[in-house]
C-alpha cells in the first residue's frame, strides 16, 4: 500500500509578525520516495523543514508525519525521524564516534545497541578509520557523511536532509549523492530534502516542489516538469534557401518553430528523440537536405526560469559566500 508519509496542509510560518517565510504550503510525500524542495536562498526551505522536524511551530496550518501531528504529537514525530541539518552540527572537539554516541544518548538508545550501531554506521559512510579523530580534522565531505550517520542512529523511517551537499565541491557532491542513495536502500526510508542545486534535485529526487518566496510554485517529477515546458529544443539547418517552417510545423509533436536570423530553425517539440527523425523524414521527402542538427533536453534550470522568471544561477554566489561565512564563524569559536 502506498501511503502518504508526510502530509502538509497550508503550512505557514511568519517571523516577527511580518516576514512570511513559508506561505500556505501544501504537499504530500509518498512512502519510499525522495521528495525535494528546490528553491533559492531564503525561499523558506529550512523554515519548512524546521516545522516538520518539530523545532519550530507553524503559525498556521498543520502537518503530520506517519500520521503523527507535528505539534500535538511532536514527541512521536521526533522518534521516527532523522535529521541532517544544513550546517555541520557535529561537535568539532569530539571524535566522530563520540558524536554518534552523543546523538544516540539523545534518543535514549541503550549503550550496547548504540555502540554496535555507531560502528556499523561509521563503516557504512566509510569513516571507520577516522572514528577516533576529532571532527575538526575532517574534510567537508567527511563531515557531511558523519552528519548522515548521526541522523540515522535512531533508524528513522523518515529522513530530512537540508541542503545535503551545500559547500561541497563537485566530486564530493556526487559521492555524497551515492551515499544518500545507498543509505536509503539500506534503511528503507522516505526522504524529504531541500536543495538549491538543480543537478542535485535531478539526480536524487523522485518528485520535487519548486519553492520561491515561501510558496510552492509547481510540484512534479523532474521529468514531468521538464516535459511540461513543451519539450525539447531541436535546432536544424537545411542546404536549400527556402522557408520550411510550415513543413516542420505540421510534423507530429512539434509545438513551435522559429526561423532564426542565421537561417536555422529552432523547434520546440515534445519527445525530441522521436520527433527529430520525423522532421528529417518530412524534409527529405520534400527534397530538402538537412545539413546540421542538434537536440537539447530542457534542464531544471529552464523549468525554474519558466516558473520564476529568473535563473537559479543568479542566487548561487551569495549562497556560497554565506556558507564560507559560517565556516569562519566556526573558526572564531575559540574560547
Amino acid at each position: 500500500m502506498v501511503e502518504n508519509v508526510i502530509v502538509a496542509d497550508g503550512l505557514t510560518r511568519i517571523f516577527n509578525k511580518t516576514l512570511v517565510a513559508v506561505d500556505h504550503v501544501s504537499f504530500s510525500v509518498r512512502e519510499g520516495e525522495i521528495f525535494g524542495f528546490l528553491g533559492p536562498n531564503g525561499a523558506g526551505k529550512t523554515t519548512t523543514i524546521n516545522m516538520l522536524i518539530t523545532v519550530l511551530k507553524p503559525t498556521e496550518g498543520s502537518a503530520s508525519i506517519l500520521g503523527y501531528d507535528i505539534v500535538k504529537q511532536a514527541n512521536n514525530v521526533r522518534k521516527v525521524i532523522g535529521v541532517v541539518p544544513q550546517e555541520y552540527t557535529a561537535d568539532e572537539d569530539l571524535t566522530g564516534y563520540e558524536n554518534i554516541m552523543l546523538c544516540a544518548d539523545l534518543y535514549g538508545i541503550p549503550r550496547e545497541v548504540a555502540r554496535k550501531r555507531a560502528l556499523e554506521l561509521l563503516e557504512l559512510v566509510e569513516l571507520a578509520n577516522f572514528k577516533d579523530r576529532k571532527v575538526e580534522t575532517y574534510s567537508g565531505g567527511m563531515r557531511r557523511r558523519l552528519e548522515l550517520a548521526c541522523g540515522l542512529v535512531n533508524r528513522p523511517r523518515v529522513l530530512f536532509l537540508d541542503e545535503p551537499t551545500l559547500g561541497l565541491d563537485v566530486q564530493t557532491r556526487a559521492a555524497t549523492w551515492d551515499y544518500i542513495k545507498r543509505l536509503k536502500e539500506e534503511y528503507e526510508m522516505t526522504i524529504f530534502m531541500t536543495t538549491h542545486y538543480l543537478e542535485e534535485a535531478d539526480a536524487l529526487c523522485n518528485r520535487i516542489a519548486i519553492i520561491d518566496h515561501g510558496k510552492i510554485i509547481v510540484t512534479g517529477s523532474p521529468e514531468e516538469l521538464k516535459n511540461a515546458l513543451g519539450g525539447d529544443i531541436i535546432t536544424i539547418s537545411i542546404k536549400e534557401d527556402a522557408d520550411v517552417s510550415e513543413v516542420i510545423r505540421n510534423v507530429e509533436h512539434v509545438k513551435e518553430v522559429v526561423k532564426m536570423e542565421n537561417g536555422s530553425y529552432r523547434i520546440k517539440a515534445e519527445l525530441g528523440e522521436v520527433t527529430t527523425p520525423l522532421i528529417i523524414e518530412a524534409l527529405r521527402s520534400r527534397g530538402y537536405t538537412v545539413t546540421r542538427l542538434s537536440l537539447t533536453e530542457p534542464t531544471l534550470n529552464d523549468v525554474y526560469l519558466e516558473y520564476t522568471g529568473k535563473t537559479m544561477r543568479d542566487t548561487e554566489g551569495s549562497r556560497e559566500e554565506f556558507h564560507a561565512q559560517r565556516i569562519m564563524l566556526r573558526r572564531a569559536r575559540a574560547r
Partner: protein
Amino acid sequence: MSGNNEDYGPSLLRGLWALTVRELKKWLNDPIMLLMFVLQPLIWMGLLGKSMNLGAMFSSENLVNIPIPDKIPVPGDYVTPKVEGYVYISGSWIHQSLQRMFSDIGESVMKNVFGVSDYFSYMAIGMISMIVMTTTMFSGMSIVWDRRLGFLDKVLSTPVPRGAIIFSKVLNAALRAMLQATVILLLAVLFGLRLSPTFNMMNILGIYSAIFLISIGLSSIFLAFSLRSTRLERPMQIVSLITMPLMFASNTFFPISMMPNWLQSVAYVNPLSYLTDALRQLTILPLDASRILVDFIYLGVFASIFSLIGIVLSWRYLTR
C-alpha cells in the same frame, strides 16, 4: 534490515548527562583553556594579592622621612610626677616607640577593616567569587554557539526532554565553577592563604553549596538572555559591561563598610557580596552563624528567582 519502530525511551537524566559530559569534554580537552584556567588566578593573585600588600603600608620603613626633632620639649605639667619647667625626650626614642606602635596599629586596622591581617587571603577568596561569576555567565552564554551553529536545532529535533537541554547548561556552569574554585583555593593555600583553624569538611560542602546557588541563578538568566537575543555579540557585550561594576560594587576586593553610601546600597543587593562573605566565613574568618545564615538565605532567594525566570524564558524559546 529494518530495525524501525523501536521504542527506546529518551530520559531526562540520560540526556542531561550526555549533554553535560559533552560540554565538560569540550572544556577539558582544550589545552589553552586549561592553561588559562590556572594562569588567570595566578596572575590576579600575584598582581592584586601580593603586590597590593595593604598591610605593608603600616610597616616601620614608611616612617623614615617623617621629621622628628632630636629633642622634644614637653611641659612639666604633662609628665608624672609633675615637674617645674620642661623635660626633654630624645627624638630617636620617640621614633622607636612610634615604629613599634605603628605595626601594632597596622595589624588591628587590617583586622578591623578586612577581618584578617593579610590582604592576600582576603583578596584570594574574593577572586574565587569573581571567577565563579564570570565562568557561570560565560557557560550560560555558550548556548549562543549551539544556536548559531545549528547544534541546538538538531538537539531539538530529537526526543530528548527540553528540560535536559536547559539543565545541562546550568549544571555545566555549576560544575565548572566548583572545579575552578577548588583550583584557586588550592593555589591560594599554596601561596600562603591562612585557613581558619576551624576549617573542615563541612566548610567545603558549604563552599560548594554557595557556589552552586549563585551559579544556577546567574547561568540560567544568561542562558535565557543568550537564547533570546537576536545578535550573537550582545550577551558578550553585556558580560563585559557588567562584570567590573558587579565586582567593585561588592566586597570582592574591598570591604563594603569603606564605601561611600550610594555604593554601599548597591553592594548590599549584589549577590556577589553574599557569595564572597559566605566564602570568607567558610575559609578565613571565624564563622558567624547568623551572618552566614543571612548569606545563604539571600543566595537561595536569588537562585530561586533568577533560575525560575531564566528557565521559564528559555523553555518558552525552545518550544517556540
